[in-house]
């Protein structure tokens, strides 16, 4: 989600390179995020090569922002 949050959209290959996750892991994560309405998936072809572009929906961006705030609050309450 972090990598998609900082860009407008990115394709499968870019996400795989940046996250160092396997193709299976990414597919699995993206399917769940798409089902939750957080990620939009667009499939097309560049020449003969398939391309899958991912982008966060407004709901996804809001959810990620809330998640960051929640974790930040939780961590700030931990003793030094």
């Amino acid at each position: 989600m972090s990598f998609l949050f900082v860009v407008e959209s990115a394709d499968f290959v870019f996400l795989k390179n940046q996250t160092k996750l396997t193709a299976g892991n990414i597919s699995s994560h993206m399917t769940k995020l798409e089902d939750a309405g957080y990620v939009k998936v667009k499939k097309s072809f560049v020449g003969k090569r398939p391309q899958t572009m991912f982008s966060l929906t407004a709901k996804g961006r809001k959810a990620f922002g809330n998640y960051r705030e929640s974790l930040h609050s939780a961590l700030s309450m931990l003793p030094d």
Partner: protein
Amino acid sequence: MTATGLSNLEQIERRAYESMWEDGLIDVMAGLALFLIGFLWVTQDSMYSPFVAPLLVPVWIAARRKISEPRIGVVNFSAERVAKESKKLLGLFLFGVLTLLIGIAWFFLGRHGVTNLLTQDVNIVAGLPAGLLAIPAIIVGFAYGLRRFFGYAAALLVAAVPVAILDLHPGWALIPGGVLGIVVGSGLLLRFVRKYPLSE
């Protein structure tokens, strides 16, 4: 969602952006441009040199689509990043215009003998093109975080000195920088292709 959501988002974005320049293609194209322009000047075919950059830009775009994008992927950066890059490009373009004006002014001053006072022992004019081109190389190094461009700038400046002292043709000062860009860029491209193999 993982804990990486707490990572510095700016660092993630910057690393993603910098990874787009790992392929070395910009180095190869810039080096090729310098080499060809220098070669055309030296061989007295300088009238073709303005066509070099416009011809190489589509080659660079095609090479990125064919070689880099299938390996590194495709990303559309945020509107903020796009605006930032547009400002950098505008700055480089304005510098190019300024360089052109300086060259024209120097040419006309030279015709009136004004520059002779500065070129008694050293022909500064001979080293000027390479010296001026070193400046956008330094700007690119700072603006895009491509520190190797400082090396190209140094190569241009180092080549400009003997050309000025020995009063050689200015084109000779561009050729070493061009060769350096081609060699370094090719090495980066080879490393890039090995680091990012094509997925089946």
